[in-house]
């Protein structure tokens, strides 16, 4: 792979990860949101794959395949099944409306670029240059988590944060060691499984509901 096409592909895939994160704020149809999440997982896998080819790293190539499979298809499928049980489910009344959250996302992206400028300036290379995109994805994930009120939306927010951290890890360090990556992927998968079961139990317990309705425990 030539230098410039490597850089372009990396820019494109990393940018797509952030675009997907922002799109989850824009769409309210939960089915569409899971599709966006799947695209983000694939983009993340591409980032890892491109880096693996560029530096000829076998372990990273394995990681890329795992990310591709787990985040690109398995997790979105698991979430889609929750959504399907609740047809017509939409994130109708987020705490902050869509235009405001998109504006918020822009501010967060700016903050991410300003705050992580130091890191990228320290060891400049085509990959670490993109690290602020990962930080921005983490921050957008936070925004989704605190402003959305459906169980599925909160799972999505959590996964955005996780994907953002994974992106930073790929771009800065070409991935954490394989054993850690395996464990981390397994953990994420299990968290989604646990949340899926919990969401199902809560549905049978409370009926169709917003998380706002859970207010039993407080001081």
């Amino acid at each position, binding site marked *: 792979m030539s230098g410039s096409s490597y850089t372009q592909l990396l820019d494109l895939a990393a940018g797509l990860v952030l675009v997907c994160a922002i799109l989850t704020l824009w769409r309210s149809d939960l089915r569409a949101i899971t599709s966006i999440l799947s695209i983000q997982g694939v983009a993340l896998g591409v980032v890892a794959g491109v880096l693996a080819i560029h530096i000829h790293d076998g372990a990273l190539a394995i990681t890329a395949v795992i990310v591709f499979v787990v985040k690109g298809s398995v997790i979105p499928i698991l979430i889609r099944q929750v959504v399907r049980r609740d047809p017509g489910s939409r994130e109708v009344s987020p705490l902050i409306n869509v235009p405001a959250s998109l504006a918020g996302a822009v501010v967060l992206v700016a903050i991410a670029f300003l705050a992580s400028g*130091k*890191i990228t300036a*320290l*060891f400049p290379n085509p990959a670490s240059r993109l690290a602020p995109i990962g930080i921005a994805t*983490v921050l957008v994930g*936070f925004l989704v*988590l605190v402003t959305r009120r459906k*169980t599925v939306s*909160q799972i999505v927010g*959590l996964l955005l*944060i*996780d994907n953002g*951290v994974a992106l*930073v*890890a790929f771009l*800065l*360090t070409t991935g*954490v*060691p394989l*054993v*850690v990556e395996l*464990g*981390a992927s*397994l*953990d994420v998968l*299990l*968290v989604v499984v*646990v*949340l899926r*079961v*919990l969401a199902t*139990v*809560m549905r049978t*317990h*409370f009926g169709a509901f917003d*998380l706002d309705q*859970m207010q*039993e*425990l407080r*001081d």
Partner: protein
Amino acid sequence: MLIYVILGLPLAAALVAGLVPWRHWVGWMTTFANGSVLVFGVALCVKTVDHRALLALDGGLRADALSSFMVVVIGTVSFLAASQTVRYLSSEIDRGSSSSRHASLYVVLVQIFVACMLLAVLSANLGVMWVAIEATTIATTFLVGHRRTSGALEASWKYVIICSVGIALALLGTVLVYFAALHVGGPHSGPHGVSALDWTSLMAISHHLDTGIMRLAVALLVLGYGTKVGLVPMHSWLPDAHSQAPAPVSALMSGVLLTVAFYALLRFKAIADGALGIGYTRSLLIVVGLGSLFVATSLLLTQRDYKRMLAYSSMEHMGLIALGAAAGSSLAIAAVLLHILGHGIVKAVLFLAAGEIYLVEGTSTIDQVPALLSRRPMIGGIFGFGLVALLGLPPFSLFVSELNMIRAEVAVGLTWVAAISLVLMSIIFVSMMMHGRSMLLGDSTSSDGFGATARTFTVPLVLGLVVSAFFGIVAWPLAPLLHAAAHVIVR
């Protein structure tokens, strides 16, 4: 070999409990397995007390004095919690709120939970440690929601979401430390691969880590692991989860899971102090420590639920050990570790006693369980002595550790921190005494509880209190170990 046995015991117990249907002996088997973890943990301490480290699995697992000490804490608390498993599960099955399949799941998850905590303290690699701590969240989610009431479901949802976010931040912090390590002395020197997240190799190069990156990394780590410790600002899951979980699970979470997460912070603190000097991490720990103390104090004053009271008291004690770690001298770290052990035992005893009170009284409201000492002298007595121990009165070990943490804070010039924490501790002391008095004392109209308390309940809990008092009076059996463990962190 010893390390494999320690990690294998709870896993083997989980396997057996998963394969056979729930019977009482399964519960006692797990008690035996966790008790054996304690025994082998003591053996591990004997081997590592002379500043050596045991390695296993090609250096992937590592036990120094600090790890061994944490294994003992995990063994002690999990033994206490497991000793009440049969009691808790039988009562749930008798009341018809749990099936035997549920009971099996409970036992399996508890043992996996214990195994994850052991892996966290025994792994040499900070990445693997992260994976293990994240896995504890997964294993405990269903345990928190085990009672399947709306409160329990709400608590477990909050728990898993907040802790997963926290732990994701901790991963980001870990990645940044890894990044800093990869770039030591230029882009292509320094350790690579797994060894770059190995704690000992990181310690060796800690002076050369980039300070800008380390500052960001440490802030994320304090925030991230601090979530699992129950420190502000991401503490809101703690009172809910600890009050809604079954009593033995609350005992494990409050007694030892919080401090396993704190252990992770201690490991990173040692690296950060090498890179940044002691001041940076110190100020972060003071902020989160005092913040947690403030929150705990304000919510303990008006607390009406005795399980939540115990949960906020855990926040108080986590705040105290954060302040102790902020002082950072070897006296301070030794006191922090003694506090971790003492708090683990006492808080486990109290949560188990609270579970028993809830079982016989059917409510967790403080005002509705008056005159326990005259109505149920055994349970009331254990709860009362537990409270006295928790509030740091002599002869219990929390008195010694709190005193030494305060002394250490003053010795390093943090007198104002010591003063504020003493004031807050006094307020907490008074308010918990008031709550304790309204639960324990008073006139009773009926005495329905005489002799009704089972020996399987009283013996382990009284034993726990005796051990705590023992280490408050004579420190010599622990002193060399505490010294060696503190030496791991403070060079």
